[in-house]
Every structure is written in structure tokens, then in C-alpha cells.
């Protein structure tokens, strides 16, 4: 625990020292810059803070947003409108700022509701963010003299402080928001953001409320952006529709892409560099400058998807090969309060399926499936390829999947709940393929699995991970506990399977859905997993539903077996009954199953 504190302190110390250096640069800058560069820089620093938020939204969470300019415009217009039409003074200024931030937050929330929901595609979300500034600009245009329409508003009363003061305000704003952003992306919550970027679907099945997190981040970014817009308008004494336009929104993206998305500092540096350079160059080469930016942008997207920042850090590593990226050490511990299996009760079956059907158009994948799985029971589901096994798993873990019928988890009807809600009812699901979160470490993956139970710290990191005994067992049996700081993309197939299972267990489910957990494993690895599964049913009273191809493995560990064929339950019974059944043999042998009639 002491460890925890020192590390956190050191992180905060780094942020603190970085901020101090930044603030020192800002403090002395006005004395070295001429009045021209100073005034260009003031506006650019406000824009750079916006680009920083674009990097968090796009570079870290993976939402390609064209709409950040809308929030910038909202902040700017809050300033322009209030000072022009209502009044000016410290009270009015604070009120206008508050109006701008609240309006931006509301619009961001509405956009989030519209753009992010389980099953929305990233393309769709992107187009929504594109529509936002276009509609907002239209509104500004049509509001006539109130907003000044195309001409904008100018010459409203504002604080005519000296340029030095404004540079300090803009600089302090940029340094503090960037420091906040840096702490955020380096925190445990930052790991969650990366996980959403890399594998959103998997996050949802770990019980992480992906859409809510995305919306929350949109709102936070919108608030920072609106504050920047407010400062920009108050300094430059003018607001115009283009401040809210999608042209500016795409410029933010261009700067972010060139600077290096997901690097936080790269986009900030790029924004400052490109804005000041374009002030110099666009006058002499108006059209060529735009062309040049366009060509460089396309080239960078195609050839250098991480922008120019990695080139710089790469060079740094080349010069100082010893400086390696810092990886946080985390320790494992036994979670003494583990609730694994506690929900199991004999009276209500953990999993109850009634007349479940799934159709794709005229194609019936599942028809009238009715079954019950009990606590302390390992239910095997077998059937030939295309029998609907994986679809059944999907229908249990996502309320939107089934066409008809009912699924109850621990007595709760899942209705049309999205996956992360179903997880809350006690379902844990592992997947057939082993795509995890490539750039996260093993410890981070486990932390992710605990998100629903432990949450994630916004600006800090937790160094100890409390897990249930079976999860710890799997980790030690597969040797993963020795490599907690290893990135998952470096793991062997068997280790990935082990981690997958450990993650599902870490989320403490009462109903465990396993889709071919032993595919591609060696005999020894299979035995380890089999042992753990048996123990989970016996000692922790878990209800396990297992899809398997390997009949021998099923026979070894299952209590009961359901045979699916062409979307219907062909047979249900004990292992021996099923294995000796002629019907099942014929199905597996590929015979016609008229005998079933």
C-alpha cells in the first residue's frame, strides 16, 4: 500500500514539475516575443488546448470527431452574445462562462446519446459529430442580428488587458488542461480508454459501460473546449460562425493527425507550430499552402498513422537507448471479500431460457430453445458447425440479439439490455477468438475486468489487484502471474486463453459462458483448465455453460449435455445418455435426422 502512495506521488510530482516548467515558459515568454507573435500565440494557445481534447477523444478513445469546433463556437458565442446583448462585468463574465460550459455540456450529452449506443458503428458516430457543427452554423446564420449571422459579433465590451496578461491566461489554461489530460490518460481510467479504442465489444462484455464513458468524455472535452472558445472570443473581441464550423473541426483533426494522435503533446506542438507557420506562409502562398497541408496530411495518414511525434521519440530512444517507457508494477492479492459464486441459490436457476428464437430475415438460426442451467452444474452444449451454439451465447449475453423468447439470469429478465447491463446480472462470457487488448499489459487487462466492481481511478493508478482464488489459480498455473507487465500481444495462445478465463473470473460472474475455452491448447493446458472449471462448480457453486467441439473433454467435466442441431434442441441429458445416443451419433456422422420426428 505504501508502494501505491509513492507511485502516485511520483506521478503527480512529474505532472507538477512539467506544469511548473510550462508555466515558467509562459511567464517569461512575453518578454522575448514581439507584439505580433504574442497576439498570434494567444489565439493559438487556446486552439492548442482544444486540439489536446480532440487527441483524447480520437487518439485515446478512438472516436473520430469532426464536431469539436461546435463546442468551441458555443463557448465563444456565450461570450459574444452575453457581452453584446445583456451586460458586461465580472458577474456577467462568470455567468456567460457558466452558460457556455453548461450549454456545451448539454449539447455534448445529446450528441453522445445520439452517437453512442451499443451497436452504433464508428462511421455513424463520426457522421453525427460531422452533422453537429453544420447544424450549429446554420442556426447561427439564421438567428439574424442576434448572432450577427455571417458577420458575427464584434466590438462588444471585453477586458482590454495587455497582451502579456492574455498570454498568461491562455498559457496557464493550456498548461493546466494539458497536465490534467496527461494525468487522465496515464491513469487507470486511461487504460480503460485505450481498451475501448482497441476492442470496444470486448469491453462491453466485461461490463464496462462503453457508451456512457464515451459520452462522459465527450462532455468533459466539450467543457474544456467551450472554456477555450470563451477565452478566445474574450481576447479577440469577435465571434464568427466559422469558429463553430466544421472546417475548423477538420483542422483540429489535421493538426492532431500530423502531431501524432494518442501522444497528447504531439498535437499540442503541431497546433502551435502549424498555426504560427501558416500565419507567415499563407499570405505569400495562399493556395499552395492549403495544397501542401492537404498532401502532407494524406501522406501522413497513409504512411505515418501515428504522426510525426513517434519519429521524435524514436530519435530520442536512438540517442538514449536506455530510456525505456515506464511500466507500472502491480501486485496481485487475494480478494478476501470475493463474491464469486455467492449469488448462486438452489431455488432460482441462474440461467433460464424460454422459447428463445433468433432469425436473420428468413433464416432461422435458433428456434424455440428452452433450457435451464443450475448452480454447481457444468452444462455442455455440443452440436455440429452451424448448429447455433455461438448465437445462443450471444443471445444470452446481449438482450438485443434474440428475436423472440425470454432469458432470465438469476431470476432477472434481461429484456433488451445491452451486454454491459447483462454482465451486471452476473453473466461472464469468454470468446472463441483470442483477440484481447494488444497494447495493454496482463495486469491492466485484469484491472479492466474488475472495472464493474472496482471502477477506475480518474487521475491515479492503483497498484494492487485483488482477485478471487480461482482467478489467481489460473494465473499461477499458466505462469501469467510472473509476467504481469507483459503486453498481451506478446503472449502465447495458451496464455491468452488462460488470461481470457482469468479475466472473466475476475469479473466475478455467477453464470459463466465459455465458448470453446480449450481450442488450440495442448493436452496439459487443457487438463489445467478442466480442473479449474470442475473446482468452480464444486467449490464456488458456479453455473457454467460450455460450448465444446471436443466430446472427450465434455465427457470428462460436464454434468449435463444439450445437443443443438439446426437451431433446435435435439436432445438433453446426462453425458452418458447423450454420448450413447444413436441420434447424436448420426448427427455427428452427418446423417439425416428424420428419426427425431
Amino acid at each position, binding site marked *: 500500500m505504501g508502494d501505491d502512495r509513492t507511485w502516485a506521488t511520483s506521478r503527480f510530482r512529474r505532472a507538477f514539475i512539467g506544469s511548473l516548467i510550462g508555466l515558467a515558459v509562459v511567464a517569461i515568454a512575453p518578454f522575448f516575443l514581439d507584439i505580433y507573435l504574442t497576439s498570434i500565440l494567444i489565439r493559438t494557445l487556446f486552439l492548442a488546448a482544444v486540439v489536446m481534447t480532440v487527441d483524447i477523444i480520437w487518439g485515446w478513445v478512438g472516436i*473520430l470527431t469532426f464536431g469539436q469546433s461546435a463546442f468551441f463556437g458555443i463557448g465563444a458565442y456565450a461570450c459574444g452574445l452575453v457581452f453584446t446583448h445583456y451586460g458586461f462585468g465580472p458577474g456577467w463574465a462568470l455567468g456567460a462562462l457558466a452558460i457556455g460550459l453548461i450549454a456545451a455540456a448539454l449539447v455534448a450529452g445529446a450528441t453522445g446519446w445520439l452517437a453512442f449506443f451499443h451497436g452504433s458503428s464508428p462511421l455513424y458516430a463520426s457522421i453525427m459529430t460531422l*452533422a453537429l457543427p*453544420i*447544424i450549429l452554423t446554420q442556426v447561427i446564420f439564421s438567428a439574424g442580428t442576434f448572432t450577427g449571422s455571417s458577420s458575427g459579433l464584434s466590438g462588444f465590451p471585453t477586458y482590454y488587458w495587455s497582451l502579456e496578461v492574455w498570454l498568461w491566461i491562455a498559457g496557464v489554461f493550456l498548461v493546466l488542461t494539458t497536465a490534467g489530460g496527461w494525468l487522465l490518460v496515464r491513469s487507470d481510467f486511461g487504460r480503460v480508454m485505450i481498451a475501448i479504442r482497441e476492442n470496444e465489444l470486448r469491453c462491453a462484455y466485461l461490463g464496462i459501460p462503453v457508451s456512457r464513458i464515451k459520452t462522459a468524455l465527450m462532455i468533459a472535452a466539450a467543457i474544456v473546449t467551450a472554456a477555450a472558445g470563451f477565452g478566445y472570443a474574450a481576447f479577440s473581441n469577435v465571434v464568427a460562425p466559422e469558429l463553430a464550423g466544421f472546417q475548423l473541426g477538420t483542422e483540429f483533426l489535421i493538426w492532431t493527425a500530423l502531431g501524432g494522435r494518442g501522444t497528447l503533446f504531439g498535437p499540442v506542438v503541431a497546433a502551435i507550430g502549424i498555426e504560427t507557420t501558416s500565419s507567415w506562409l499563407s499570405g505569400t502562398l495562399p493556395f*499552395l499552402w492549403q495544397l501542401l497541408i492537404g498532401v502532407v*496530411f494524406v501522406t501522413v495518414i*497513409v504512411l505515418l498513422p501515428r504522426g510525426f511525434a513517434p519519429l521524435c521519440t524514436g530519435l530520442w530512444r536512438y540517442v538514449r537507448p536506455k530510456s525505456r517507457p515506464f511500466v507500472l508494477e502491480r501486485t496481485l492479492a487475494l480478494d478476501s471479500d470475493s463474491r464469486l459464486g455467492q449469488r448462486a441459490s438452489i431455488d432460482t436457476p441462474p440461467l433460464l431460457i424460454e422459447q428463445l428464437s433468433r432469425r436473420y430475415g428468413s433464416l432461422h438460426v435458433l428456434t424455440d430453445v428452452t433450457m435451464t442451467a443450475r448452480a454447481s452444474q457444468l452444462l455442455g452444449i455440443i452440436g455440429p458447425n452451424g448448429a447455433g451454439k455461438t448465437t445462443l451465447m450471444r443471445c444470452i449475453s446481449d438482450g438485443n440479439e434474440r428475436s423472440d423468447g425470454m432469458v432470465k439470469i438469476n431470476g432477472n429478465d434481461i429484456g433488451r439490455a445491452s451486454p454491459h447491463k447483462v454482465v451486471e446480472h452476473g453473466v461472464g462470457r469468454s470468446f472463441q477468438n483470442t483477440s484481447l487488448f494488444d497494447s495493454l499489459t496482463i495486469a491492466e487487462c485484469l484491472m479492466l475486468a474488475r472495472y464493474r466492481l472496482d471502477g477506475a481511478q480518474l487521475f491515479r493508478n492503483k497498484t494492487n489487484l485483488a482477485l478471487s482464488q480461482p482467478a489467481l489459480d489460473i494465473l499461477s498455473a499458466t505462469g501469467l502471474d510472473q509476467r504481469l507487465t507483459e503486453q498481451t500481444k506478446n503472449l502465447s495462445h495458451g496464455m491468452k486463453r488462460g488470461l481470457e478465463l482469468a479475466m472473466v473470473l475476475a469479473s466475478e460472474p455467477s453464470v459463466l459462458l465459455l465458448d470453446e475455452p480449450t481450442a488450440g491448447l495442448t493436452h496439459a493446458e487443457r487438463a489445467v483448465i478442466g480442473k479449474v472449471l470442475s473446482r468452480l462448480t464444486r467449490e464456488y457453486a458456479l453455473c457454467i455453460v460450455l460450448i465444446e467441439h471436443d466430446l472427450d473433454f465434455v465427457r470428462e467435466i460436464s454434468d449435463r449435455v444439450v445437443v443443438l442441431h439446426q437451431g433446435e434442441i435435439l436432445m438433453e441429458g446426462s453425458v452418458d445418455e447423450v454420448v450413447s445416443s444413436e441420434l447424436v451419433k448420426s448427427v455427428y456422422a452427418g446423417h439425416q435426422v428424420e428419426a427425431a420426428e
Partner: protein
Amino acid sequence: MAVLALDILTTAGILFVVSSGLLIILGVMKLINFAHGAFLTVGGYTAYSVSAAGYSPWLSIPAAAIFGFVGGLVVERLIVRPLYDRPLDAILATWGLGIVIGQLITLGFGRGVQFVPTPLAGTTELLGVDYSAYRLVVAIVAVLLVIAMSALLKLTRFGLNARAVIMDETLARGLGIDSTRVRAWTFGIGAALACAAGALITPLLSVDPNMGLPWLVNSFMLVLISGVSFPSLFVASLILGGAQVVVSTYANPILGGMTIVVIAALVLRINPKGFSRG
């Protein structure tokens, strides 16, 4: 009422023609071509060049289609193909391409407005009203295009391969379909449709370096809402275009301009599949 009906029909026709190139690319390649607006513009300038060279304005449409197809193949090879597994980056790269095309046009033709003569001027009488003849032509072209594109997808070898790629790309490759080639062709056809559409609508518009941009967002909305089928794109154009005309006529044209975006966004929020299925 007759005027309203004709307005709706011809508006839907224009929207359909303008969006069809985007639809086939989204359907087969699962990516949104942000250079679509620039392709429309290229079509407009092709029409301008053809008529400036003294040829019949009707020739400009096939000329734009050919030009677009070849250009589309080049763009696909250089920019889109390296980004197949990064669809969001493909959006950005095509957007950047749009900027580049716009600036090249500006450098070549200047920023000003160019004029293309209307091949079919004046009005014709239909349903008891005088109506713009050229708009009716565009509507007829739209109907023919629905039939032609559906036939292309249903009846030709390319269409069969494309549908296989739409359904399951890995499987299609397993069946020996050269999916890379299908994609290249798709992008070429999409670009050809966009350029031809640009040339087709030019007589109703002016030709300038930004002429394609205002169509972009409405086109995105229409294709997102109609999945991968041309008939459903036509239905979507008819319904949303109709809504736009009705709002413009009875409320005001500024609200009308936002109608398609707002309705499409709400429909997609409630049913992410849009009109493509139920």
C-alpha cells in the same frame, strides 16, 4: 399539389443520383468516401471542359464517368487500399484527398464560378403544370439508375462477386474471389457514378471548386440509412427528400436544409439498420 409532387419526385431523383456513388463504396468496402464531394466537383469541371471544348453537353456525362472511373482506380490503389483495415483513417485520408483535389482545381481553373450551358432549357407541361424539363430528366435518369445498378449487382459476374464480398469477405476469398480486385472496381464505379452525377446536375447549378461540398452530409445520411441496396436508397431519397421539400415549402427552407440530417439521425438512433431491414 402537382407541383409539390413533382418537386418531391425530382428532389428525390437528384438526391439519389448524387448519393449512389457513395452507396456502392460503403456497401462493398464498408468505408465512407469523404472525397465524394470532390468527385462531384470533378464531374462538374469535366462537364465544363467538355462544353468549353465545343462538344455537346450530353457528352459530358459519359466523359465524366470514364474520367471518374480511371481516377477512382488510381486513388484506390494509392490511398484507399493501404487503409482497408483502418476505416476511420480512410475517412480522413479521403477527406484530405478532397482538400487536395479542391486546391488543384482552384489552381487550374481559378476560384471563380464557371458556366455550363443547359442542354435542355425551359419547361414542359406535365400534370397540368409547367415544370423544369431538365429536373424531370434527372428524375428519369435516377429511376433508370436504380434499375441499372440493381441489374449490375444481381446479374453480372462483378455483382455476384461484390455481393459475396458484402456478405462475408473471408468466405468470398476462400471461394477464390479476388476481393482486392472487387474493391478496386467498386471504388472505380463509385467514383464514376459520383463524377457522372456531378456532370448531370451541373446544368442546374454553377461550377465552382466547392460545388460538391453541400451535398456531402445529406448523401452520408441517405446511404447510412439505406444499407447497401439501391432500391432502398431510392426509397430513402423519396421519403427524406420529400420531407425536405415539404418542410421547405410549408415551414422554411432553412429548416428544410436540416431536415434530412435530423430525421436520418433520429431514425438511425432508434433503428441502427435504417431502412435496409424493416
